[in-house]
């Protein structure tokens, strides 16, 4: 093919085709992806926050004032309370998150936890036996 001149040739089309009905669903596809402005939701908590805080503050005050009066006598009691009881109290009543607890631990504490947590094989078997998902994991 010599002396090919683009202008002398009949127009060469790009040759690209579009799948049938492609545009029938195209705009819908895009509309579904558009970011929508979320309506501002005011939760019950947000609306009543001020009241809840006020009530809580009054409660704390009314409880601590008589407590302060008895402070002298309670300190001795605390000193004699069993360590176990304090631990139990902290375990069940303190609202510490895992992260907060981890921050408070040093290397020695962690080593100790590792020892006390060494798994009992029988207990492990029993736990797996009782877990209804075990069979599913094994067979899949």
């Amino acid at each position, binding site marked *: 093919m010599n002396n*090919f001149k683009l202008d002398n040739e009949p127009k060469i089309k790009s040759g690209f*085709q579009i799948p049938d009905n492609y545009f029938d669903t195209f705009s819908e596809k895009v509309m579904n992806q558009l970011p929508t402005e979320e309506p501002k939701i005011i939760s019950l908590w947000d609306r009543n926050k001020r009241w809840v805080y006020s009530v809580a503050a009054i409660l704390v005050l009314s409880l601590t004032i008589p407590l302060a009066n008895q402070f002298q006598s309670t300190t001795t009691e605390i000193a004699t309370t069993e360590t176990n009881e304090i631990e139990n109290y902290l375990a069940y009543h303190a609202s510490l998150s895992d992260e907060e607890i981890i921050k408070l631990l040093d290397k020695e504490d962690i080593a100790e936890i590792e020892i006390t947590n060494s798994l009992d094989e029988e207990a492990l078997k029993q736990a797996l036996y009782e877990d209804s998902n075990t069979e599913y994991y094994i067979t899949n």
Partner: protein
Amino acid sequence: MQEEKDFIEELLNPKTQNIAFQKLMREYQRPLYNHIRNIVLNHDDTDDVLQNTFIKVFQYLNGFKGDSKLFSWMYRIATNEAITFINNKAKRNGTTSEAMQTKIVENLKADVYFDGNDIQIKLQKSIALLPEKQQLVFKMKYFEELKYEEISEILGTSVGGLKASYHHAVKKIEEYMNTN
């Protein structure tokens, strides 16, 4: 021009936005599809880029100043999206975008949505060898049949510069067609 202003207002008003945007898509989906397809070459990639283009158009509508026409603004977004797509695809494959394009053109024969004959493939091959700007100008002028004034608004290049680019592109393409 006033008509376009009204339409842009409809696009920005939350009450009329959805209907106006659907109208915008109906009007532009085909020309923008062709524009993107000419750059990224295969259908699936074009589908992705076209969707992203309209999503970007929607997101940027608030910032549309009306300095340029809606038409050229949307073409500009589509062009940027398509070129970025090709560059990223090349990067993912550890190659240059020029090499990537040559590779895609070589695969065109196997593309179910390409029914070109040998001369059409040869033309695509010769285009893939051109510098990016010349490719764009050639595709927009020859395949999409846009006016120089329109291309100038989209690419921000003077009409004179575009004519020179097109002329160079045609020269190189003819040379390739004659020797290969």
